């Protein structure tokens, strides 16, 4: 395939789509599927077939449309207008189809208001196609302008140009740390090495985060195109996507996408008629949070236990099989086609001066509408929670937002007006992380939440370095003492010392950031810790405080020995 073929393919697909009077799109992302989207789609297909409407109406299974808690979602697009229906059942799907045919409003299903902030307030760059193209048809991605950026780069830009474009755009790593992507690419480009690799990190271990999965499921070609651009920029011919083991659907769609792209000459040898060869293989994760860490991830790709190794040398210098390796998050790669296609200036104009572009968040927890959103960097937390998310349900009060998963921290109500960007979040003691935002109301107990995350880190510690292996166990134990009302103020001091120790001496990111949930909850909700210890009281009513007063060290040892449930894991 050469660039003119690509344009012809796009043109042909656009004509085909315009041939239909109407396209009915059903969200086929994991959340909607589990809410019954497959039944809805089946009903629609049946209805269309029965009515002999195949030539007029097309039913499309698309990727994520956003408001996951309102699924299954159906979007009707006709004559340039879009109507979205929520919580569609097979009954209401028939009504929707009927209304499309007859041109009337469906009798009992009402669509989402077109100005619903959840949809209207977003700015979709990475998610531009998700929810409106069929991820299993390459033609639809191409018709939406896909692979144009790659074609442009291969024929009109040098690898250096691509690196420069990415640097100028100010794009930063979306996996968590926010390292400037352009700098990383330039390092990998300059690193000497016969072979180089590009790796997309789609492991996404943060509980409560599913942006990467949605991107891979909804728009797999965008990730592939971003990786191919990276391959061209740094001089690599082989890429790997490391997909989390639980993400079957994402893996399947990526596999199909790779096959299609290879068949069309958009991946493989001599991509788009140029001299650039690029292959992508999928590697499936097997359930280890630590594999989100780049050195562990590479160990896992090489078929070993996912244990980190010491950096430097950084992967950009010495990575897979000792060769320079560029590792970026799936979302970062997905942003690249837009950066190269629409230009660095366009991208840099979105967001704040230091954090450019948009960010995808998985908004969930105690919030009216949960789902996937993409907003410019610097949007405040208040806007996200109250305008886009519709506020806290059942008239409860906002207590905190947990961001960044086990490596992040909690943002209290007093910081609701903090803009969500890398710097501001770091300033208030949390991180952007991969973009999970879990909203908690007054029914959540902060020491309990900290204990939850420490339990997670303790469980997920790979065991290679002692501070993390031993420290997380001890920290979790202390937190359990606090939440069960058996702790003393000394324990709190010990806990704080351990936070410092584990954070500074651990080998990799997992251990270094494990104390963050404790530190940030201590920073803003210290009263609750003290309440648990001194008053033996849990204001939120989450923790079960033991009936009897705190036993001494001996008593506790006895309890351990007797295996009293809840005290020891």
């Amino acid at each position, binding site marked *: 395939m050469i660039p003119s073929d690509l344009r012809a393919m796009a043109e042909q697909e656009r004509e085909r789509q315009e041939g239909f009077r109407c396209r009915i799109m059903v969200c086929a992302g994991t959340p909607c599927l589990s809410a019954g989207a497959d039944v809805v789609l089946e009903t629609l297909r049946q209805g269309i077939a029965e009515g002999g409407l195949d030539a007029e109406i097309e039913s499309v299974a698309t990727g994520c449309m956003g408001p996951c808690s*309102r699924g299954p979602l159906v979007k009707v697009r006709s004559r340039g207008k879009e109507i979205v229906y929520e919580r569609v059942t097979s009954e209401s799907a028939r009504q929707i189809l009927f209304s499309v045919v007859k041109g009337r409003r469906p009798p009992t299903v009402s669509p989402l208001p077109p100005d619903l902030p959840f949809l209207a307030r977003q700015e979709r760059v990475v998610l531009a196609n998700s929810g409106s193209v069929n991820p299993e048809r390459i033609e639809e991605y191409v018709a939406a302008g896909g692979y144009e950026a790659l074609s442009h780069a291969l024929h009109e830009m040098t690898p250096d140009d691509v690196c420069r474009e990415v640097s100028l755009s100010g794009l930063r790593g979306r996996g968590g740390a926010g390292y400037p992507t352009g700098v990383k690419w330039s390092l990998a480009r300059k690193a000497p090495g016969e072979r180089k690799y590009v790796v997309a990190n789609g492991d996404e*271990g943060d*509980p*409560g985060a599913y942006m990467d999965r949605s991107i891979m499921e909804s728009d797999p070609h965008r990730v592939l195109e971003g990786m191919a651009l990276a391959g061209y920029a740094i001089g690599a011919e082989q890429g790997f996507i490391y997909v989390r083991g639980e993400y079957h659907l994402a893996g399947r769609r990526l596999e199909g996408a790779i096959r299609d792209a290879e068949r069309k000459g958009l991946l493989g040898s001599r991509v788009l008629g140029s001299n650039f060869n690029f292959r992508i293989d999928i590697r499936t*994760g097997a359930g280890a949070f630590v594999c989100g860490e780049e050195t562990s991830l590479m160990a896992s790709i090489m*078929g070993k236990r996912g244990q980190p190794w010491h950096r430097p040398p950084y992967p950009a210098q010495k990575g897979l099989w000792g060769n320079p390796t560029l590792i970026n998050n799936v979302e970062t790669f997905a942003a690249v086609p837009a950066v190269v296609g629409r230009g660095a200036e366009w991208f840099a104009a979105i967001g704040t001066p230091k954090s450019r572009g948009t960010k995808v968040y998985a908004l969930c927890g105690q919030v009216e509408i949960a789902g996937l959103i993409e907003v410019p960097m610097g949007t405040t937390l208040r806007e996200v929670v109250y305008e886009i998310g519709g506020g806290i349900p059942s008239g409860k009060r906002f207590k905190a937002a947990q961001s960044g998963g086990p490596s992040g921290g909690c943002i209290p109500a007093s910081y609701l007006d903090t803009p969500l960007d890398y710097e501001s979040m770091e300033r208030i003691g949390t991180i952007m992380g991969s973009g999970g935002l*879990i909203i908690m109301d007054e029914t959540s107990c902060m020491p309990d939440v900290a204990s939850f995350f420490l339990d997670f880190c303790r469980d997920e510690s*790979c065991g290679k370095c002692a501070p993390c292996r031993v420290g997380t166990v001890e920290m979790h134990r202390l937190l359990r003492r606090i939440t069960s009302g058996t702790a003393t103020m000394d324990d709190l001091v010990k806990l704080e010392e351990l936070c410092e120790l584990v954070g500074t001496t651990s080998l990799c990111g997992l251990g270094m950031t494990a104390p963050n949930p404790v530190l940030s909850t201590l920073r803003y909700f210290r009263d609750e810790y003290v309440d648990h210890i001194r008053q033996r009281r849990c204001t939120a009513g989450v923790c079960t405080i033991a009936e009897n007063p705190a036993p001494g060290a001996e008593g506790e040892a006895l309890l351990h020995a007797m295996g009293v449930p809840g005290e020891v894991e």
Partner: protein
Amino acid sequence: MRHTDRQSDSSLSPALASDPRFTAVERTLKQYQYRPDALIEVLHVAQEAFGYLSDELMDHVARQLKVPLSRVYGVATFYHFFSLEPQGEHSCVVCTGTACYVKRSGEIVKRLEGEFGVKAGNTTADGKLTLSTVRCLGSCGLAPVVVLDGEIAGRNTPDSAAAAAHHLVAEGKPEKKPVAERPRRRGRRGGTP
């Protein structure tokens, strides 16, 4: 003739060698040209085919990929996904991600543990049900989530989860909730069907 060499040095039992499920494993080994870095991919296929990784299977994979058995064992035990024990007839997985946790999925786990008399991560004595927990399935909008034999069921309560699990064990397949009966907005969540 590299391939036959490898076959001959394997101490594979005739029962396993003639098992039809075994062809998938052999195919994957061949597909990756017996490269040691394909270990995890091979184990994925083996577990999918057999349901768990038996000692014999691991031993075979070790020989075929020319890596020490200790490494195969190390990898198989390091990752949560792999299991060295046979799984129950049915599976019930409770999500314990943050969103589910905030919506009290811990109570669901406790309830199921009590109902079936088995600790999470284990199989009931009669081999009917394996109860396990998982770190976030990414269906956070539907929290708390329970997966029964691969079917995701969202917005659970301890009652609804226990009822669904009992149904699974009794009927042999997960209950398909008719979509029309899903609770509307702000309705009572879950409930015993």
